[in-house]
């Protein structure tokens, strides 16, 4: 193991048959749950003090979310785990789902004990058939062992957990679209407010977190807030699973402390491939901005990413080699979002195909300077007027190229002149 790696969430990842509840218990699992059932308020305090932030993209403090749902006075509350991991270049949830399913169940149970929920859903991406199978077994095991169902471990707490799976829609990874999908409707983003914490699934208060966030919960309860805060940075405590892809020698998923520099992560992944140079780095998945390699020494966490105008997202790093054409890459990415848009609002449904047409025109070398200006203008219009984050995020890479690599479009112009 490399020094810069940290095994916290993945500490049980080497376990054989992680779906068996006794294996997880032997490794010390489900002990945090007992603590949480015995004293939910103390557990809430630990999560608040630990400063855990959501791992799905926005980085909203988990404790505040819990507090909000816990204070709602409602007969029925829900816990939902978002395992609809669809972001291009992300694979960390798949690892957690298949390697430590019981840690996720335990995390959800602790959350249920704290906010007072009786029912939970885990929404696993339809393409993750293996994860669905493992998780189904894990849920069955947990029911048999009395960790799910009525009177959990002899306490008065009851919690039912149901597995749902998507049918291949990227948009259902957005929390409110996911709720719509669970309710059996077309997966389209709801307007906020009201937030799911107040009015979520079937209009009941719903606590919804990403897989990785739930996986953090048992660790935090186990080690305590102070010990947890020693890992990572002041604003972003804890570790992060980083999916590394692109022109590196060993692409994969690495667990590092928050705030580890991008260069360290690159080294962890075996460095840049031979005979290649890093042209740019896309952070935060397919909709993230592309930054220059000069920023390699930036610590990788939410605050520092915001500072340099990058997107932390689910913590992905794609190293783009110098053989890649950025315009082509952009076209490809926007093509993905064009397909995955729900089609409700005009900027997304009509604007994205138009952007692609313009990009293809630029790529074919038939463009003028005017076209590039129009492209930027249209991208900006989409960003400002789209109904949900998908539309505005889709043009993110394009706008970041415009800002960080202004020479790219100029080069296309030059090529055209050369050809003439």
């Amino acid at each position, binding site marked *: 193991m490399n020094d810069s790696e940290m095994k916290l969430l993945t500490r049980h990842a080497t376990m054989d048959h992680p779906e068996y509840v006794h294996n997880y218990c032997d490794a010390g699992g489900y002990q945090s749950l007992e603590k949480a059932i015995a004293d939910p308020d103390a557990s809430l305090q630990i999560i608040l003090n630990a400063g855990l932030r959501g791992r799905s993209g926005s980085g909203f403090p988990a404790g505040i979310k819990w507090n909000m749902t816990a204070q709602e006075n409602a007969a029925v509350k829900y816990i939902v785990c978002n395992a609809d991991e669809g972001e291009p270049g992300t694979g960390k949830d798949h690892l957690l789902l298949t390697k430590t399913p019981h840690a996720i169940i335990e995390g959800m149970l602790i959350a249920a004990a704290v906010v007072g929920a009786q029912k939970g859903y885990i929404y696993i991406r339809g393409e993750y058939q293996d994860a669905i199978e493992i998780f189904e077994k894990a849920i069955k095991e947990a029911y048999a062992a009395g960790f799910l169902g009525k009177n959990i471990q002899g306490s008065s707490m009851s919690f039912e957990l149901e597995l749902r799976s998507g049918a291949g829609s990227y948009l259902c990874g957005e929390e409110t679209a996911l709720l719509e999908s669970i309710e059996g409707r077309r997966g389209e983003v709801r307007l906020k407010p009201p937030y799911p914490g107040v009015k979520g699934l079937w209009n009941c208060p719903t606590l919804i977190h990403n897989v990785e966030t739930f996986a953090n919960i048992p660790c935090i309860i186990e080690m305590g807030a102070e010990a947890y805060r020693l890992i990572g940075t002041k604003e972003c405590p804890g570790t992060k699973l980083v999916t590394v892809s692109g022109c590196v020698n060993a692409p994969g998923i690495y667990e590092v402390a928050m705030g580890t520099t991008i260069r360290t992560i690159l080294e962890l992944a075996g460095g840049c491939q031979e005979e290649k140079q890093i042209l740019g780095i896309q952070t935060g998945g397919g909709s993230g901005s592309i930054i220059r390699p000069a920023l390699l020494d930036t610590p990788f966490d939410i605050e520092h990413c915001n500072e340099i105008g990058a997107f932390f997202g689910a913590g992905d790093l794609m190293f783009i080699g110098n053989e890649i054409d950025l315009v082509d890459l952009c076209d490809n990415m926007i093509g993905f979002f064009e*397909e995955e848009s729900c089609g409700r609002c005009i*900027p997304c*449904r009509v604007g994205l195909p138009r952007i692609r047409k313009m990009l293809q025109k630029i790529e074919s070398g038939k463009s003028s300077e005017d076209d590039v200006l129009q492209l930027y203008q249209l991208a900006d219009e989409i960003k400002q*007027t789209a*109904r949900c984050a998908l539309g505005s995020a889709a043009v993110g890479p394009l706008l970041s190229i415009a800002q960080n690599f202004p020479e790219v479009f100029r080069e296309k112009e030059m090529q055209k002149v050369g050809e003439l």
Partner: protein
Amino acid sequence: MDNITVMLNHKVIKTEPGCSVLEFVQKEGIAIPTLCKLSEINCVGACRMCIVNINGKIMTSCTTRLTDGMNIETDTQELEQLRKANLEMICYNHRQDCSSCDRFPYCELHTLCRRYGIDDRNYMFSRVEEFRDCGPHMIRDNSKCIQCRRCVSVCNKVQGIGAIGIFGKGTKARVENLYTKFGDQSPCVNCGQCITACPTGALMEKNEFEKVGVALAQKKELIAVLTPTAAIQLAAYFGTDKKSATGKTIAALHRLGFRAVFDSRIGEEEVAKQYRTELEYRLKSNGKVMISTHCPSTEKLLKQQYPNLKENIISIQEPLQYTAKYARENYAKSQNLDSSAIQVITISSCTAEKYAQNLTENKGLVDVSLTTHELYQMMEKFCVSSFSTLEIWKQLEEESFDYAAAFDVDNEDVILSEMMSLMKAAPQKLGIKNRYEQMIETEYSYQNKKIKIGKISGLKGLQQLLKSPDDMKEYVFIEALACPGGCINGAGKTRKFSGDRL
């Protein structure tokens, strides 16, 4: 409720919370362009035309609630630029053949395009006219659909049917009627309310007026059956008074070349008599509450979705179809013609008549069912003169039915009046009841028993009522009409802008 303070275009205003930003801004007398919004029914934020700047952020005003401390700007240069860009994008996806469009000039998209100075542009995806068969009464042209989702909302929220939905995602997302896929099995009841909601020409009734016009030009024996509601709809469109409407419409029909015009209330009277006999029998035998079935949409809904209510409805021929039968027989006799040489054309406010005329029990009674809008188009096309259609309308002198009903012309509700006269009470205005949307009821004492009859319009309210048997038991007779507000709001109306109700 506590007052809140907001800034609107740099002006401080004290107001009450609870409404949307759009409502607030409009109340303050400032216009914001809207396209997909349809009053309370459709508020989905699809068109992005009503964007405003709230605290420095661009948001749609229709979907944002007004809260304290908001700083709203509605008219900056940037907003106008963004709105224009959005409108351009909508037009890229809309086949603009305005001059031959059914909806012109009352197209909301066209009106906005004029305002923002957007001319025809290259249609982006394909120029194929994507016509879909949506039933006997209407077609959908998805190359003109801007996916505002009004039709979806109207079908779901106003009528409670749910026969229209969104299919596919991304650029392939489209609105489809279930009829296209499931045919007669679809829950669509042919009420056509979606047509009235469409802001563009994507939804249209199936046009049959041209073949009628051709037959008239060939001097064939055509007779018309006119419902007074259609005449009123025409008068409302022209903005003239309702009293002269029927007479003028009859004159127009004569001018178009119809040999005779029959009053549709001939059939209503007959049907009302049959209802009356049935109701009298039920009152004596304490039978089940009777639901009227002279509205073809309601009849389809009841037969398809509520088979358990079979005993509540009686199979009586629909009034318009009855009149058509009567008209054919009588006209043939009086003119010494073979009845097959005569074509009977009905003119009503209803799109569902196009469906009803093809039902087995009605086969061959009506040759063509026209809507008010089609009659208008016929007047436009075949009464060619140097004047506009409005001028023609104004010039028309009132004429009377060639075959009128015995019924008092001032009273429009023949069937209810008949039911009321059974209760030995003078026909009177019904009292308002709030429990169900669009329901009115009246109470009588009949042979020392208190009994009620009710009239409900709009299928959502009706379905709510049908699902609560206890409430239903309160009545002896329920007149049910599919279109909200009754036949006067039938989808066959000549449209100005969508969403206006008579």
